[in-house]
């Protein structure tokens, strides 16, 4: 098969490419240039840096596969960064990696791969994609610590049919061993942790730099609506936050709601964060249809725990009732629904 491997310059996608070559496929490597520094240069910190693309290029050269850098900066800016800013300014908590997968990697790149006559797009994600009972199934990666099925939960049959995650069947340690065995320069490269376009800095600084609205002062109110303090912009607050509120009480207080229109931040007790049910929209089902069994396990943070719940479809929304009370769920986060280790669907939390 002819295979396109999306190479970030990290160890996972390096090994994914090596595994595809090893399997005898006709492989081409690409790096997506997503973000740029001043004057159109590759950024020097965070992801997509010059040194990352250089690592990818060198690994591709070692594997003797063609390698290209594709310019995705416009697409990434509109689909991911602008939306990231918009979400924060509207009091939502976005996950830009998920948006990138939805609007960039598993959307445009898939169609572009077709133009290069590639049958398959391969990434270095820790997840498994298998075919069973007439459907492609997305499951958690074997390495529970590294599992990335959550950020891929929006994928459906059209995408899964065209993608493969070769490292998802092994642990990160095994991936590094393969890389070391092949003498790949990325074998010991540290994992990337940050939001790629934010780099080493705080995402709040990034939002401040890109929007004046972020610094509109406002008030802190309690759950009864009494003003208890002032603040220098809603960007400094996310739901569930305890530190840095600028006011102190006898017992811990948390951000329970952010109201961007009035630049108001509501704070309350932990019990005010308690949630038993949530509403999600933009719902996708992996097989294209909702599962028969309403009992699911729901994960709403990238490395958060999974919680048993029951879902019910209501028009184009899904209502999720958790078995146990949850604390600190924020609007804008993605809820991924699992049946055991298998992703069945996902949506974005709206209430």
């Amino acid at each position: 098969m002819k295979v396109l491997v999306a190479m970030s310059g990290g160890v996972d996608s390096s090994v994914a490419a090596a595994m595809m070559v090893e399997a005898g496929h006709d492989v081409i490597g690409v790096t997506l240039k997503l973000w740029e520094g001043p004057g159109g240069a590759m950024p020097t910190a965070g992801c997509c840096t010059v040194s990352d693309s250089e690592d990818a290029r060198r690994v591709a050269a070692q594997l003797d596969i063609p390698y290209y850098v594709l310019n995705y900066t416009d697409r990434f800016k509109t689909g991911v960064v602008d939306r990231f800013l918009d979400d924060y300014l509207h009091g939502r908590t976005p996950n830009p990696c998920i948006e990138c997968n939805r609007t960039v990697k598993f959307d445009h790149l898939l169609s572009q791969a077709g133009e290069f006559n590639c049958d398959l797009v391969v990434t270095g994600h820790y997840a498994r994609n298998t075919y069973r009972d007439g459907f492609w199934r997305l499951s958690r990666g074997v390495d529970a610590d590294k599992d990335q099925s959550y950020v891929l939960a929006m994928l459906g049959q059209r995408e899964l049919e065209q993608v493969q995650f070769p490292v998802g069947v092994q642990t990160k340690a095994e991936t590094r061993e393969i890389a070391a065995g092949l003498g790949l320069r990325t074998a010991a490269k540290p994992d990337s942790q940050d939001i790629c376009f934010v780099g080493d800095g705080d995402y709040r600084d990034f939002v401040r730099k890109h929007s004046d609205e972020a610094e509109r002062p406002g008030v802190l109110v309690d759950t009864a609506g009494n003003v208890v303090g002032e603040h220098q912009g809603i960007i400094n607050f996310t739901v569930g936050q305890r530190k840095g509120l600028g006011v102190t009480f006898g017992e811990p207080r948390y951000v329970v709601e952010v109201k961007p229109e009035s630049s108001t931040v509501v704070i309350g007790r932990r019990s005010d964060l308690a949630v038993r049910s949530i509403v999600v929209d933009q719902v996708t089902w992996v097989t294209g249809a909702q599962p028969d069994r309403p009992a699911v396990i729901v994960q709403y943070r990238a490395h958060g725990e999974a919680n048993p719940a029951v879902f019910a479809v209501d028009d184009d929304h899904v209502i999720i009732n958790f078995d146990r009370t949850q604390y600190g769920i924020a609007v804008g986060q993605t809820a991924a629904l699992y049946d055991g280790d298998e992703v069945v669907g996902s949506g974005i939390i709206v209430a």
Partner: protein
Amino acid sequence: MLYLDHAATTPMRPAVWEAMEPFVTDTFGNSSGSHGVSRRAKNALEEAREVIAGLIGARPQEIVFTSGGTEADNLAIKGPALSSRGGGVVTTAVEHEAVLESAHFLASLGKPVTLVAPGSNGSVEPDRFVAAITSDTAVASVMVANNETGAVLPVTEIADAIRAASPGVLVHTDAVQAFNSQDLNVDELGVDLLSLAAHKFGGPRGVGLLYVRAGTLLEPVLHGGGQELGMRSGTHNVMGAVGMAVAAQIAVLDRAHFRARVAAERDAFEARLGELLRATPTIVGDRLPQHAHLRFPKRTNETMLIQLDQGGVAGSAGSACQSGAVTPSHVLSAMGMSPVEAAECLRFSFGWTTEPGDGLRGAELVAGLLS
């Protein structure tokens, strides 16, 4: 492989390497030394200088060897601007980055810089260009032909008009892309400064020159030991200069033949791609015979380049960033193209290794890979 990117760089002519080789091994001397091996190197360098000077109608002392076209352009723009009071630059918006970024740098130092916009034909109106000259202008720069589109610009007309109206202004031309196919004589062009790069016409990469009309005052860009009459310090690249001279001789001797040969292949290539993919030449009007700059409706250059590379065809988009990603072309956008239109364009360029039949064969190959 079908190599249709000769405008980026072209293979060295075999005779060039033969001439260069002794200077890698036996005649390795530093041409500034005072012993035998240095003297022999120095002699070869000066011989190369004489040869090249003769080929462009210049005197040997008017040739300043550089590391290539970029350095020559830098010296041509910054040199006059930094050695005069006004220090202004007038140039076109379609110049090579070496000129534009030098001008941009000068603007950051407070020097007045004007970029004259081209028409949709990729060339500039002489009247419009000359009207931008002011009493502050130190240097006016117009390329002989654009490296991307191949459009030929009216250098002689502009130089004549400037000399008549503002005799104090130095006129520079970037002839880097043109030397293969265009007759170039500094007096006929009427220029004071002219940039060349050896690797564009079958010489080695890493060597070029700036023609500097006798009596012209330039502030050097590289300071040091004072080689090249103080205008360009640094130990001489003797083998580079020797190679450049041989390549230039061959290019000039072959010029008429080269023109006819590449034009025939280019025309066949364009005609067939017009039939097969409805591709259209971007430039109508005077242009280099070796350039095919084509617009492919509803396609994008990034994707096309990869499709072509997969099939062993080397073409080019306007420009690429350090990483290799295709970036929007400043030339096409200056010509009034939208980003989408500009992204539909590719440059194919023919060269001295182009064989009869390559045009037609190339078109068929390209069409097959793109569909």
